[in-house]
């Protein structure tokens, strides 16, 4: 499928290895969850199959897609080549093996997840090292560099907290600190890693996809300060009794995210491209969802509803993180494949535009159905309706397969 590279041509096999693994893991995770629906209809969610599916989705899909996208976007956004592509392929193999073994262990023998989690942590360490060395080469550091570098630090901390949780199961220890470490794992992973990363790259992609010019980047500094302060206060609150500091932390996170949403809106007001592409609009709608869920999380903490907070975290993963990644993958994958297939033909013959690399109508339908699925999930979880949840999961599993097919179909163009 991928001919050998020549000269200075980008080796697209590296980002594609991650992205193909990611879309297949996404479909697999949703099929596993679909298989677990009968067991979940009894109201039990802490099941080995559900753990396996959740990790396959968050690690196999979201983490691997983010890593693949970074191998493509970091050289573009920061004008610096990847430090070692060879290390990148090793890192892919180790991380992929780590994810598959972690998911399999969680499904079959949860107490034996510690060693696979160390393998996965090693893959993450290699990735962070690779990106740190790459960013180090950047001549003029920007606020985007700060967002991405901080997110990498949190990725490392998320992996370490995850390995510690696995050790608790393995050694049947840590009962007293288990909830705290779990809280750190969620906070670092969702807010520190994924959110800061998506924010950082949105600052590159939003102006690029909308052809926006003449906007200020100054608010990004306040977004960074507010959001990272929220994570810091949230971290401290996990070691303190009561909910007060957690509420303060979540209010800072909500304020930072609200400023980010406003800033992206302000950037888009300066755009020249009036009609935005469907995939990009889908990613933008994920920002609106993310904002609503940040505010809802603050409200749930204030009223002290742990159940509501759990639902919000689930919807945050799907509506903000997964939807952002889906929207951006719809843009990144055609670009990668176009560059590989047509870049050398520009100026010599007619080549397709990036929009022509995918069936826009099919993408529109998928985006709408993903939105319907999110509403179904919210209703099912809020009203504890297992029939609705089964309907959501069936729709979501079907969509994940359609999404994988749409992405893989680009490779035939």
């Amino acid at each position, binding site marked *: 499928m991928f001919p050998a590279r020549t000269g200075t041509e980008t080796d697209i096999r590296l980002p594609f290895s991650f992205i193909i693994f990611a879309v297949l893991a996404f479909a697999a995770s949703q099929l596993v969850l679909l298989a677990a629906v009968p067991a979940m209809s009894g109201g039990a969610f802490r099941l080995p199959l559900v753990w396996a599916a959740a990790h396959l989705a968050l690690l196999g899909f979201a983490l691997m897609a983010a890593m693949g996208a970074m191998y493509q976007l970091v050289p573009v956004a920061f004008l610096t080549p990847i430090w070692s592509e060879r290390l990148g392929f090793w890192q892919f193999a180790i991380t992929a093996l780590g994810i598959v073994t972690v998911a399999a262990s969680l499904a079959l023998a949860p107490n034996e997840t510690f060693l696979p989690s160390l393998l996965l942590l090693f893959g993450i360490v290699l990735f962070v090292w690779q990106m740190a060395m790459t960013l180090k080469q950047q001549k003029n550091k920007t606020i985007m560099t700060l967002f991405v570098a901080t997110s990498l630090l949190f990725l490392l901390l998320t992996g370490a907290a995850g390995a510690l949780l696995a050790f608790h199961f393995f050694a049947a220890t840590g009962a007293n600190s288990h909830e705290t470490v779990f809280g750190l794992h969620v906070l670092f992973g969702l807010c520190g890693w994924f959110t800061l990363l998506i924010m950082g790259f949105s600052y590159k992609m939003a102006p690029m996809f909308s052809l926006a010019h003449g906007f200020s980047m100054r608010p990004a500094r306040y977004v960074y300060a507010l959001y990272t302060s929220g994570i810091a206060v949230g971290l401290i609150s996990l070691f303190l009794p009561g909910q007060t500091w957690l509420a303060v932390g979540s209010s800072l996170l909500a304020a930072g995210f609200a400023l980010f949403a406003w800033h992206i809106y302000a950037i888009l007001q300066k755009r020249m491209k009036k009609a935005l592409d469907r995939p990009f609009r889908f990613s933008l709608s994920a920002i609106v969802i993310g904002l609503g869920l940040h505010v809802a999380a603050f409200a749930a903490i204030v009223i002290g509803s742990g159940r509501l907070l759990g639902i919000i975290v689930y919807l945050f993963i799907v509506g903000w993180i997964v939807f952002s990644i889906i929207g951006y993958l719809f843009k990144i994958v055609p670009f990668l494949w*176009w560059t590989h297939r047509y870049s050398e033909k520009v100026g010599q013959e007619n080549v397709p535009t990036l929009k022509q690399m995918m069936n826009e109508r099919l993408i529109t339908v998928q985006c709408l159905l993903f939105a319907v699925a999110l509403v179904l999930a919210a209703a099912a979880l809020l009203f504890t309706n297992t029939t609705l949840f089964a309907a959501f999961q069936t729709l979501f599993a079907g969509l994940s397969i359609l999404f994988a097919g749409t992405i893989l179909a680009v490779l035939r163009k």
Partner: protein
Amino acid sequence: MDILELAIHQLKTVIDPELGINVVDLGLIYRLQIQDGQIDVLMTLTTPGCPLHDSIAGGVKRALEQIDGIHDVRVQLTWNPPWTPERMSEEALRQLGYFA
């Protein structure tokens, strides 16, 4: 058609694949000098770190190399002055839906 018109015609075949607009209407070409079978192009891109950097600059070179009598094409990219939307033609603005 003189050689300058021919060169502009060739440049209009180089399309930014993200926007679907050619490099001339986008206002990316700052200078085009033709002398003794050699063309010197000074151009920019809509944003520094544009992922289509190599594709578009390479496309400009290949398009101009196809003109009879041209034996050398030199393409130089610059960010100074940076590209601004005012450089776009009315046709480009129309394609972007700016007047809608």
